[in-house]
């Protein structure tokens, strides 16, 4: 059940990024909603689920973009892996935690993206790209956290996103 919900959430996120958020862009920057979902999921469920969601979510985004397919799959997978390490080490009910984590996770993901982009031949300057796109995306992402985290958290603990196989801690 939770996988269906996650899949729907990712698809909706991509649709929003293609239609509504270009209008809501700030200085030409849109948030990366798929990344937010991956970070939330990794925070609440651990490294492996986070990495898997990151991979497939990123892959779907890559398929829509059409160029350098796989780059988002890789970067989001690694980000999910790293964020998932924090799963049980922080107090997840406090909203500040996911805000900071989203910011840090987004910066991390964008840095990874810029590194991989260089490798595959995209012509993006590293520091320029980080300053003009990477950091603003991270800021925009973390601004959206208070709006969506609550619902995500409740759904993860009590609702559709709940992990029914995990032992209750």
């Amino acid at each position, binding site marked *: 059940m939770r996988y269906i919900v996650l899949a729907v959430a990712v698809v909706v996120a991509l649709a929003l990024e293609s239609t509504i958020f270009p209008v809501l862009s700030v200085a030409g920057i849109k948030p990366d909603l798929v990344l937010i979902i991956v970070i939330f999921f990794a925070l609440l469920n651990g490294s492996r689920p986070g990495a898997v969601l990151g991979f497939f979510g990123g892959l779907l985004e890559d398929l829509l*973009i059409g160029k350098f397919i796989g780059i988002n799959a890789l970067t989001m997978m690694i980000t999910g892996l790293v964020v998932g390490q924090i799963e049980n080490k922080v107090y997840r009910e406090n909203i500040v935690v996911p805000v900071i984590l989203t910011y840090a996770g987004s910066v991390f993901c964008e840095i990874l993206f810029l590194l991989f982009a260089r490798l595959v031949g995209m012509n993006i300057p590293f520091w320029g790209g980080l300053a003009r796109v990477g950091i603003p995306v991270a800021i925009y992402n973390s601004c959206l956290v208070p709006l969506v985290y609550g619902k995500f958290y409740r759904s993860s603990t009590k609702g559709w996103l709940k992990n029914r196989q995990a032992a209750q801690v």
Partner: protein
Amino acid sequence: MLRFLSRTFIIFVLVIAATFALMWFTAVPRQVLAPVETAARSVVDPVNAGLMALTRYARGLTDMFVSVGELQGEKAELVKELGELRQENNRLKEYQLENIRLRELLGFKESSINQFNLMAASVVGRNPSNWHSTLTVNRGSRDGVKPDMVVIVPEGLVGRVTRVTPHTAEVILILDPDAAVGGVSQTVDQTPGVVVGTDDGLGYLKMIHVPYDAVISKGDTIVTSGLGRLYPRGLRIGSVIRVENESGGFLKHAILKPFASFDHLQEVFLVTGVHEENLPKLPEPPKDNAAAGANASGTIDSGAGRHGPTGLGGNDQGGTNAGTADLGRTATTAQPDVTPPPGIGE
């Protein structure tokens, strides 16, 4: 009986007879006055003149008093009419402006019908990534859309089609750093260059490969040069907002503000066919244009042709005659004495 014909009576009769004779003689209009008449007139006429002047003056005074009321009424009416005419004039001006606007929107297709076959399409989505500038339109291969079709709006060039599905097509915008358009300034100097997108998200374009001594200045309009196989010539790209020198000293680049407004694209036109002969002709360049500045040429495989300033109106350097550039040619001849600068996407 003769006693009754008194002297008075005779005189009386004579006078009457003379008068009748005078009357009879002067019954016919005459050109010349008799001296007696002249004398009489010369006495009476001045008096007449004086009296006439007096009469006119008096009449003027009375007229003035009489007409003030009339004039006020007339003025009120005229003011009212003026107000109404002004309002109507404003309304007509508004209609005129609206006419012009609507003509621009609708008539663009008509006015371009001599140059292009256009297909209207709606934008249904944009690229979800922050790193790419593309959009999706609602026309696909089923509607006859093919890759590399040029996409425009009345204000200027938007981009070209990259991928096509049966019902949609993806359009790469000229803002995308990977998109390149051969451009030329719409001035006497016809400075050529390649227009690429900048990656700073602010929506400007950069015209690169401009020789350091080429003439290009703020305010110049840049249009497509038609060199290269993809974009027909004469499509407006943007206007120069500043020119910057590049380190190395050979080249400079210009920052352009695009004419098309990319933030609010909703309706675009796909160019499905080009009538070459009706495209605007670029003015003849000065004859030594081909020799001026560094000549950079080569091919780009990212789609748009990169071209050298081999003279747009006729070439005496022996290179490709790009002046009457039909879309089937790319300027591929390298000028042997200059090495091309590092290309984009390499």
